[in-house]
C-alpha cells in the first residue's frame, strides 16, 4: 500500500492448526496472496513445535538457515519483510518446559516468562521487525481478579521484557484482547500506567476493544502517545453479557459454544453491521501522525485469501489508499 501510514497483513488466519500451514509452497501461496493484495510486509504469530515453521523462531531458523534465509523466502513472493510478531506467553509451548502453563499474573512465573521472551526478542530483531506484540495476561476466566497490585505485577513483567526489547532495538507492545483478565477500560489504563512508556507500548486492536466494550477511536485519541502498534479488523458484536467470564471462553464465547452462541466475532473491514468506525479510526491515526504499523487481520473470520482480498478492496476503494 502506498500511503503515509505503514500497512502490513497478519498471517494468523492461514495457520489455524499446527499441521495445515507447513509446506513451503503453501506458505508461498499465502505470501503471494498478501502481496497481490498490496501488502509487502507481514506479521507473524507465535506457535510451538516442529510443524510451526513460520511461527516458532527456532523452527523458522531451522527451516531457513538464518534470519536472512527467512527474509529471502519471503522475498520470493515479493513480501519484503516482517513488521512484528505476536507472542502469548500464556499459551503453552513445547520448547518451554514442555507445555508448562505460566501466567504473568503469578509472580512466581515472572522470571520464566522473561526468559521465554528471549527467542522472540532475538528473532524480531534478527529479521528487522519493529515490534514484539504480546498478550499481556491470560484469559479472565482462568485468572484471579486483578486488583491494582495484580495489574502492577503484570506490568512489571512487561517492563522487564521491555528492557530486553529496548536493548535489542525493537519495540514491545501489549495487546488487548476481549477475553483477557485486563478487560475494562480502567484495567487497561491501569496496565498502561503500570508500564514504562519508554519501553512498553500499546497494541490497539480495533475489534477486540469493541467486543470488550471500549471505543477504539476514543481510546486511541486518549492514549495516542502509547499506541505503538495497531491491529485493524471489524466485529459485529460486543460482549454485552460478560460472556468473557464463561469457563472456556475461547470456545464457549468465541466459537459459539454457549452464551449467545455467536460463532463468528471478527469480520473484514466494511462488513455489513460492523461496529468499528474504521474510517474514523484511520483518520485519527492520520491526525496524530501515527508512526507504527497498521496490521490488517482476518483473524478467525473465514477464508483467509477471500478476507485479505476484501480487506484490500476496502482500503483501496473506501479509504482511497493506492495499492
Amino acid at each position: 500500500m502506498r500511503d503515509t501510514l505503514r500497512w502490513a497483513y497478519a498471517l494468523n488466519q492461514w495457520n489455524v492448526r499446527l499441521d495445515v500451514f507447513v509446506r513451503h509452497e503453501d506458505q508461498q501461496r499465502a505470501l503471494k496472496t498478501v502481496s497481490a493484495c498490496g501488502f509487502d510486509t507481514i506479521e507473524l504469530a507465535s506457535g510451538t513445535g516442529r510443524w510451526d515453521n513460520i511461527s516458532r523462531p527456532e523452527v523458522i531458523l531451522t527451516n531457513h538457515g538464518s534470519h536472512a534465509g527467512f527474509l529471502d523466502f519471503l522475498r520470493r513472493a515479493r513480501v519484503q519483510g516482517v513488521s512484528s510478531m505476536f507472542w502469548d506467553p500464556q499459551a503453552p509451548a513445547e520448547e518451554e518446559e514442555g507445555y508448562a502453563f505460566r501466567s504473568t499474573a503469578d509472580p512466581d512465573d515472572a522470571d520464566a516468562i522473561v526468559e521465554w521472551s528471549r527467542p522472540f526478542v532475538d528473532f524480531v530483531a534478527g529479521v528487522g521487525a519493529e515490534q514484539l506484540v504480546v498478550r499481556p495476561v491470560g484469559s479472565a476466566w482462568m485468572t484471579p481478579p486483578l486488583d491494582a497490585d495484580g495489574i502492577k505485577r503484570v506490568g512489571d513483567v512487561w517492563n522487564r521484557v521491555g528492557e530486553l526489547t529496548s536493548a535489542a532495538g525493537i519495540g514491545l507492545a501489549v495487546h488487548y484482547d476481549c477475553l483477557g483478565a485486563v478487560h475494562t477500560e480502567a484495567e487497561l489504563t491501569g496496565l498502561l500506567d503500570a508500564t514504562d512508556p519508554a519501553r512498553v507500548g500499546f497494541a490497539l486492536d480495533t475489534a477486540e476493544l469493541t467486543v470488550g466494550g471500549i471505543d477504539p477511536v476514543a481510546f486511541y485519541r486518549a492514549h495516542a502517545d502509547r499506541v505503538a502498534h495497531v491491529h485493524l479488523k471489524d466485529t459485529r458484536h460486543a460482549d454485552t453479557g460478560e460472556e468473557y467470564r464463561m469457563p472456556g471462553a475461547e470456545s464457549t464465547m468465541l466459537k459459539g459454544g454457549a452464551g449467545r452462541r455467536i460463532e463468528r466475532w471478527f469480520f473484514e473491514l466494511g462488513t455489513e453491521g460492523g461496529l468499528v468506525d474504521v474510517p474514523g479510526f484511520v483518520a485519527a491515526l492520520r491526525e496524530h501522525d501515527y508512526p507504527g504499523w497498521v496490521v490488517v487481520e482476518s483473524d478467525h473470520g473465514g477464508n483467509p485469501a477471500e478476507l485479505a482480498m476484501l480487506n484490500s478492496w476496502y482500503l483501496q476503494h473506501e479509504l482511497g489508499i493506492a495499492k
Partner: protein
Amino acid sequence: MTAPERAIKWSYMDHWRSNGPSGPVDQWHSRKTMSAFLKQVKAVGFDAIDTFDFRIWQMYGDYGGPAKYQEMVQDHGLERIVNTFHAADYDVRNYAPHVPETHEAVFEDFRVTMGRWSEIRLDNIIVMPATLFYDMEPITEDKLKYSAECWNKVGEITAGFGVKLTCHHEFFCGIQSEPDIETFYSYTDPRYVNLFVDTAQHCIAGLDPVALYDRHAHRVSGFHFKDTRHVATGDDHRHRPDSEIMAPTTGKWFYEMGTDQGLVDFEAMMRAVRDNGYRGWISVEHDKANKEGGDYSESTAISRWYAKNVLEEIYR
C-alpha cells in the same frame, strides 16, 4: 502526472465458487456474493471481467439487464465487461457448425443474442467452433469447411453489432488438433473469424500455444491465460457432457498460471504477445479451481501476482 497507457490490461473470466451460510455457491447467488466477487477481483488488480452468455438471464432478472449489471461492475472499480462466452449446447439435430442444415438456427441464435447484448460494448463473443469431438468425428475437410462457412456468417452478424466473433478450441471439441485448426482457419474469413488462444486447452490437446499464436497472431483477438499439468491421452477428448469434467484420466485439468509443474510456458507466451505487438485485453481463467482442494480466491490472487511480478516484467 498520468501513468503511461498500458499495452495490456487484465480481465478475469468469471468462474467462481465460494462457501456461504447456505453452502457452496457461485457469485451469481446474490447481490452480496456478486459484490464480494467483484471486490476480490478488483482488489488484486484486475481491470475488468469477462462473463458467460447464459448469465444474461440473471443480468436481466437480478440487475435489470447487461447495462445495469455493468454499472455494478463499475461501482466496484472495474472498467467493464470485455468478452462474453457463448456456451452453446450443440446438437447435431438442430445446432451444429459442421451440419449445414442447422446453420440457419445458429445464425438466428446470434441475431437474437447480439441484440440482447447490444446495450453494452463487448470486444468479443467467444465460441467453441465445433460440437463435441465425438459428435463430429470423423473430422473431414468438408466438415471443417462447413464449420468455417457457418462462423464466417456468424462473424458477419456479430460484426454488425461491433463485436468480434472469436473461436476458442476446447481440447474436447471437433476442431482441436493442429492440422484441423489450420484447415479450419484456411476456410475462414479473417475479417469475421478470429482466434482466441486458451493456453491450457491447446496444451492439453498437444499443441504448442505459443507457436499457434505466432502463426495466427494477426487474427488473435484475445487469450485465456491458464495453466494445466496434463496432456490428454487416449479417449480423454471423447466424453459427454464434456471431457473437462468426465475424462477418466484427470480429475482436475486447470490451474492458475504460475502453478508448479505447469505445462504452459507463459514467459514465452508473453514475449510472443509483445513481439507480435498485441495491445488490449488478456483474460485470466482457472475454471474449476476449487477441485481437489483448490480455492478460487487464492488462485485469483496468485494468478494476478504472477501477471504483475513475472509477465508484466516482460510486457505491460
